[in-house]
């Protein structure tokens, strides 16, 4: 079985801001395999978050190709991309991005509810994931009743509820203290090691990057090191 989960080939992306054209990515090649925990590092504006968003199908590249599990997602329709994000990806954001009107259990179940499943079908899995995140006592709590670390662990559980092949984390510890950050990063590493999930994480924190199995630096829209 091909162990490459994500492959970016010659990916280019630029933006227009006012009257200026800004190149965010200038021909990037990257591969992430199963069980790898790859950290993308770089200064602000280096293109690391842009690459993450393109891999997650949140934007479309201007050039090149992105393949996830051997399928090129560049030509996917919105419906197809949305389904792809629901079933094959897990997202973890810097500021958690939990839905405020849903409790922890419901937030975790959300991707599968969006897939059309009922709560009864998802609940067991969601409970297990939250217990695994040591949040078994917080199932009914809403986001405004959780600490930052707890919210990020709920987000992590949400990212796992569909058994994704790939987890994308955008500065997941950016809003957390060091102790909580360590906890979250340890969980992420264990997902790669134990479950064999591919993890692509953007960070500007060296300590966070040290949890990864591979470090990729970006500068001015290009990889500073070979993938």
């Amino acid at each position, binding site marked *: 079985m091909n162990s490459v989960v994500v492959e970016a080939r010659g990916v280019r992306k630029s933006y227009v801001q006012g009257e200026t054209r800004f190149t965010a990515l200038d021909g990037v090649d990257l591969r992430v395999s199963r069980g790898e925990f790859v950290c993308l590092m770089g200064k602000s504006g280096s293109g690391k978050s842009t690459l993450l968003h393109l891999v997650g199908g*949140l*934007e479309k590249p201007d050039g090149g190709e992105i393949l996830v599990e051997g399928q090129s997602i560049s030509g996917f329709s919105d419906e197809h991309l949305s389904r792809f994000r629901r079933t094959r*990806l897990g997202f973890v954001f810097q500021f958690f991005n939990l*839905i405020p*009107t849903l409790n922890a259990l419901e937030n975790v179940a959300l*991707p599968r509810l*969006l897939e059309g499943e009922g709560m009864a079908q998802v609940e067991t899995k969601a409970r297990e994931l939250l217990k695994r995140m040591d949040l078994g006592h917080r199932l009914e709590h809403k986001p405004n009743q959780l600490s930052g670390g707890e919210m990020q662990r709920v987000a992590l559980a949400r990212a796992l509820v569909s058994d994704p092949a790939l987890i994308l984390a955008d500065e997941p510890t950016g809003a957390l203290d060091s102790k909580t950050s360590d906890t979250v990063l340890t969980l992420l590493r264990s997902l790669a090691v134990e479950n064999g999930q591919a993890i692509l994480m953007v960070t500007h924190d060296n300590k966070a990057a040290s949890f990864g199995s591979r470090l990729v630096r970006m500068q001015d829209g290009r990889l500073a090191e070979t993938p």
Partner: protein
Amino acid sequence: MTLDLWRRLVVRRVVEKKLRFGLTLLGIAVGIALFLAIQILNHSTVQSFRQSLERVSGQAALTVYTGGASFSEEVLAKVEGTEGVKYAIPLVEARAFYEADGQFQSFTMLCVDLLKDGGVRSYQSGGRDLIEDPLVFLNQPDSLMLPRAFTRKLGLEMESPLELFGATGRKRFTLRGILDDDGAAKAYGGGIGIMDIDGCRQTFGKVGLLDKIDIVPKEGVDVAALEARLRSELDGLGLKVGRANDQAAAFEVMVTAFQKMLSFIGWLAVLVSFFIVTDTVQVAIAERTKEIATLRALGASRRRSFGLLLWESLTLGTLGSALGLLLGVLLAHKLMGEISASLSTQFVRDIEIDAIHVEFRHVVMAFALGLTSCFVATLVPAWKASRRDIVQDLRNRTEDESSGRSGGDAWKAVVGTVAFVAMALLVRARWSARWPAFYGVEAALAIVALIWLGPALVDLVLGGLSRVVGRGPPGRTRFLAALALDNLRRNRERTKSNVLGLVVSLGLVIVISTINASARSNIMGWFRKTLHSDLVVSSYGNLLNNRSQVFSEDIRSRIEAMPGLKEEAGIKTYAVRWINFEHGGVDITVKAFDPPPPSHLLDVFDLIEGPSAKEIYRKIFVPGDRVYALASSSYFRTFGVKIGDEIEIRTTSGPLRIVLAGSVVDYASPNGVVYLSREVYRKYWKDPLVAAYFMNLENPSRLADFKARFDREFFDVGLQALSNHAVLEQGEKSVNDAFGFTRAIELSAVLVALFGLVNTLFVSVLGRIREFGMLRSVGSSKSQLRKLVLFEAVILSGVGAFVALCFGYALSRFWVLESLPEMLGWPLRFVFPYASVLKVLGLGIVVGIVSGWAPSRLVTGRSPTELMREDG
């Protein structure tokens, strides 16, 4: 969308933001309630009339009637002699007045030939004999039958006396029959009495006259053929032959213009609800951009996120519309009396809505309208929201709405202006009078003008304010004001949407108030001009509302014998009589006058165009080869005639040809009023009854004495002398009756406006909580933040009020000067109620301030970091 998602993402959100969504819900409910109430009342008006007609008509297949004046009983023989007629049953309808709780009330008296009437109408009395002793009933001309519910209301039982005022004065009657509340007894809402025809005609001055002849055809006779034969037999006598349906249809045509005006108001109310929903949706989307982006990132497709927002709106719409249905039925009940009074006053006849008739189709239509307006209000904002940049929204970087839009707004302003001008030209051209579909076109153009010109005006005002503030003295206040304006201009779409909702709702209030004020001012001005005599003799009731008893002219000599009356050119008193009847397919009013003293001629008629007073006097009151009359400007407009034209009126004695000598102002009938000499009227209509006598005193300062003497002298015949002031009070009451219902509509419109304003300001502030957190974090104090929020509130409500004033003024000017004259036939001078309008606008600004205060407290009550973490 699955039920789980709907419950969690839609219902829960609505419940959690209950204040905000509650206000929106109420806004939808009030708009739908007003719409439904008007539909119900319009339908109930015609249904009540139809049912009363059917109950009175009973088994009769055809009816001979005039629709107004009485006709000679000689017609009965002609009808009986027509081939195919089995029974021809005469009927007289009169208005009977009685005193209750210090006020004069009235009911319809049916004068029937009791020996024949059972073949047409049904009267039930609980299985017992209808009348305890039929011979006693028939032999006693004071015998009276009343429905059971009515007797309870009056506290009467068998053999109880009841004093009534008829044409011959006050008379005592005896209750000798109590009817079950069914059949004919339920006509006119049960406010009906039955008497034998002979005694009744004597009492109510209709000796030798009839109002209807009900016809039962012989078995096997073709009713249509019989109808044609009767028409031929009665041709030229000013009589109509028709079925109950025909009369109901004619009634429906008569009230159409009024009902259209009400319906238009109902549609405006729905439009206001639409803007309230648009407001809520736009702000709800704005404050949830990150949440929507998160859902998109997690795998919600564009279609699903679009659907989510639509479902939220439809959930609100369902609840709001359901509440609106309930409120609508309650509102219809509440307005029944006011609408009845208004219609009766406007059309100078008794129109009673005795019950609310709620049709399933009205309920379905109102509910569907509520849902549809929510759906439509949400479509574009939801579609746009589902296509937003996910990444930008996740990072909370909202677009600057002010960039690159001014070109688009400019062409919208042009289109809006063109729409406004086109609407004005259409109204002027009166195409809608010929092709009613153009009413819809005019309304659509008005809405387009509002939606596209309104925002341009808002931009203009905000831009102007920015320049003014920019030139103000430097300081924190100026900075905060400039920041508030900048916030509003940056979020252009939201600001426009907020203001537009306010403009439509306050604009509706301004239009209704102005129509009210203009109509009242014009009508009262006309009353003051034409009601000039020192005293008016009439029976009890409201003379000007046509709710007083007519009486016989025989009383004149007795009146003129009173010492103290001024005589001029041999004239001490002069009488007036007015009747409604069908002419040229519509109802008009004929006012028949005795010649007034020459010096008062132009006081009696509010002449617009015509010959000199001397010439009018000679033409109208001096018998000659030709009959002359004056007509109201509405008559000329309705029938498209001009001064000097000859018209033909079908009277009960045959056709009467009249030359129109001049035009006058008269608000008595929307279709027209014709002023005749009473001598001509009596000759052709054979009617000696009068509505009032006018007279002047030699010494007006002794008016009170004279009045006291008169009232004592004529108490037995049920007449009173009203001072000019008292008559004007009656006039004011008539106008209040005619327009009373608009108060409820104004109140509803004000409520809708205020709901919209509160909702707008609340969500506008709450949608920018993080922005306020940022301001606090860079050093803004709590009081500065509060001031900022209040500045925005005042600016929003102030700009909304100003734009509402502009639109309301322009639209109401059109309505008063162009549309109303077309719809109601009344020429009106435009009167703008500055005081009332400023009160409403002031109220809007005050509510704006209050609405801004509450959220500002919410914002200042939290720490900066709490605010910046807030997801809205």
